[in-house]
């Protein structure tokens, strides 16, 4: 068949791809939202086929898994949802200045882990000795410092020796994980679990365990938006990201910007670790961050380095994670189902960027010929 047609006609391809210059912003968002809706819908159909539940039931299970019985006044699940958004968002925010500078920080996982470890060590060692207020100051300071150091090391090597920061930060993750494995081995005993520590926990607001975490991240979100958009340092970051030569030409100290920005990035990851350890778990394991440091890379990109769009993206991803997880649990599917679900949705979201940036032009040739 194919041979025949090529022999018969010598014609231009069925379609070709052309770059689209500028799409109206609302059209772009319509495409993105359509991609999300269509992919969720498609995956719901797949789960329908696997579970013999109707589409509506599937969606309802997802909704229940995330928000629980909220209409009966139970807000426990809602807070848990917001808490999980807060953690992922915090990590995404942390990565954003580095990415904007085109410094590929793949080490959020490790930076958050050492931040959390710093907090936990203070909680265990100094917890019984210091008054609560002083203890909290030390806990916060140590975890931010630990995260910043973990971000600083690759930055120094990048600035002075031009090492590859992707590999460097990735390797730092492994070091952090192993340090924690070792610490848990020393402190854990038995089946390698450190029991939750009673000292140095974030205060509850009324009955709410997570509100402090959520407020901290909300403040950070606004601060990061302002920092990137309106501060001189934020401007320097984008110039270094666009072109280091331009930056040098206009008198920006590139080394200084790289080191300073990675300090901020690492410190914010440290804050995420702090929120996880002092604000949530009160203990640590090698998978306390649970791969969210890598998910955050995607969130930062999908959010186009805009903290407010990131809020929306993280809310969506956590919704899918909890919702699809609930579908898998309720319908006795393997837990990998939720990973597949999220994978497909992210693929569609990333894929739709293609249609925003490019246009497909079909050939008109044939039609004209026939007419």
């Amino acid at each position, binding site marked *: 068949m194919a041979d025949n047609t090529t022999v018969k006609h010598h014609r231009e391809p069925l379609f070709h791809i052309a770059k689209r210059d500028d799409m109206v*912003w*609302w059209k772009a968002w319509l495409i993105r939202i359509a991609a999300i809706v269509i992919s969720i819908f498609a995956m719901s159909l797949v789960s329908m086929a696997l579970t013999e539940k109707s589409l509506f039931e599937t969606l309802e299970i997802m909704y229940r898994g995330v928000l629980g019985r909220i209409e009966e006044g139970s807000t426990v699940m809602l807070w*848990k949802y917001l808490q999980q958004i807060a953690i992922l968002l915090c990590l995404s925010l942390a990565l954003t200045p580095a990415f904007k500078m085109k410094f590929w920080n793949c080490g959020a996982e490790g930076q958050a882990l050492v931040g959390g470890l710093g907090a936990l060590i203070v909680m265990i060692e100094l917890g019984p000795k210091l008054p609560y207020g002083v203890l909290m100051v030390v806990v916060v300071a140590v975890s931010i410092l630990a995260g910043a150091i973990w971000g600083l090391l690759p930055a120094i090597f990048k600035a002075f020796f031009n090492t590859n920061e992707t590999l460097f930060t990735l390797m730092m993750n492994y070091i952090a994980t192993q340090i924690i494995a070792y610490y848990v081995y020393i402190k854990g005993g038995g*089946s390698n679990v450190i029991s*939750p520590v009673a000292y140095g926990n974030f205060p509850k607001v009324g009955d709410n365990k997570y509100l402090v975490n959520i407020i901290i991240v909300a403040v950070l979100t606004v601060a990061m938006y302002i920092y990137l958009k309106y501060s001189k340092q934020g401007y320097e970051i984008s110039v270094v990201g666009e072109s280091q030569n331009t930056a040098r030409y206009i008198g920006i100290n590139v080394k200084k910007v790289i080191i300073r920005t990675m300090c901020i990035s690492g410190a914010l990851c440290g804050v995420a670790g702090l929120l996880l350890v002092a604000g949530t778990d009160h*203990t640590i394991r090698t*998978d306390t961050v649970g791969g969210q440091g890598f998910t955050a890379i995607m969130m930062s990109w999908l959010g186009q380095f805009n903290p407010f769009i990131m809020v929306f993206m993280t809310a969506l991803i956590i919704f899918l994670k909890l919702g699809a997880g609930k579908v898998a*649990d309720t319908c006795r599917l393997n*837990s990998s189902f939720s990973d597949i679900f999220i994978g497909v949705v992210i693929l569609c979201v990333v894929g739709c960027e293609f249609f925003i940036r490019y246009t497909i032009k079909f050939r008109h040739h044939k039609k004209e010929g026939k007419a």
Partner: protein
Amino acid sequence: MKKVSKILALILALSMVFAFAACKNEPATGENDTTAGELADVKVGFIFLHDENSTYDKNFMDAAKKACEEMGIEYAQKTQIPESNDCYDAAVELIEVDGCNVIFADSFGHESFLMKAAAEYEDVQFCHATGTQAHTSELKNFHNAFASIYEGRFLAGVAAGMKLNEMIEAGEITEEEAKMGYVGAFTFAEVISGYTSFYLGAKSVCPSVTMDVKFTGSWYDEQKEKEAADALITGGCVLISQHADSMGAPTACETAGVPNVSYNGSTINACPNTFIVSSRINWAPYFEYMIQCVMDGKAIDTDWTGTLETGSVMLTDVNEAVAAEGTVAKLEEVKAALNDGSLQVFDTANFTVTVTDTLNVNATVDGNGVLTGYMADVDTDEAFTADTEVVEGGVFYESKFRSGPYFDVRIDGITLLDEAY
């Protein structure tokens, strides 16, 4: 700013859609609740460490399904729940979203997080397998359960010993070469109690047997378990058993053609040429007991220990193609002796113990190395303080003072190749 407000509007619109979907669904759930309400006042929520790919969790999942179906009640489950705050979150979700009033978790490390939830939900019963803290905690709604699996391990050990005897008689190995290998997860009481009873079972029929033990530091790590089994086989072990939850060790045995005594369930399908027998805990009797208690409004035992008699400790069918001749009959005989009490697994006459400055510090022995006393850490605390005398009249009484194992004596004849975990 204009952009932001429009995005906000979109988010709002989207959330309206979700809210709308929720409203429409409300009557549907209401109906479900009323129809189910007559049958089931009890709804159990199960928390599993891994999923059905882990032999350990599959054993729990099968029992949960069986018990709940037989009792005609609903249940919900959460799989892949690590030993972290996720366990607390899972418990909360099962209670808040699924409406469960009994929560069960299956892994040792879940305990402290489950207790955190138990303190917050006093009306909900919390049951935990393999745990150690219920009898000292003040929580009335928190319970531990385990089974005298050491009896099952002992029986499996008898089957292993008979296989070794057969190999010696056939001239494949000498008496001195009768060395078994054991892949364990961590060096703590549950595992130590397990491999020691397995070894004593083998020794009861094959007196010259010795054993090497390797640890993986993980309950589920297929690669590490496979490597550990391979290393043991290379080191001269002629029979392998394991206390870790993946198919790593059994498949390594099948590849190398070395007989394997499995755990948690039969691996005969994957390993038809090497599988001898497997011991396992059948959790269905406990689940049925737990559910019945809640139905009747009775208190659940703080510490519940299943035995051979309750049907909690079981052996799978013996693979007669691999096992030595007469294994089935011998196992019946030993089982009867264990049941009527004429045979005790940890009879101190059957093993010797060496006490040094660092090893077995809580043990007292006589001149011949026979254990005469042992202070075990029964009431769990951070420093692992030994607090209870557990040897009485020549027997180490395992699972008597609490359901979770506390036998952690290092007996002679077993060599630990690494103690990193």
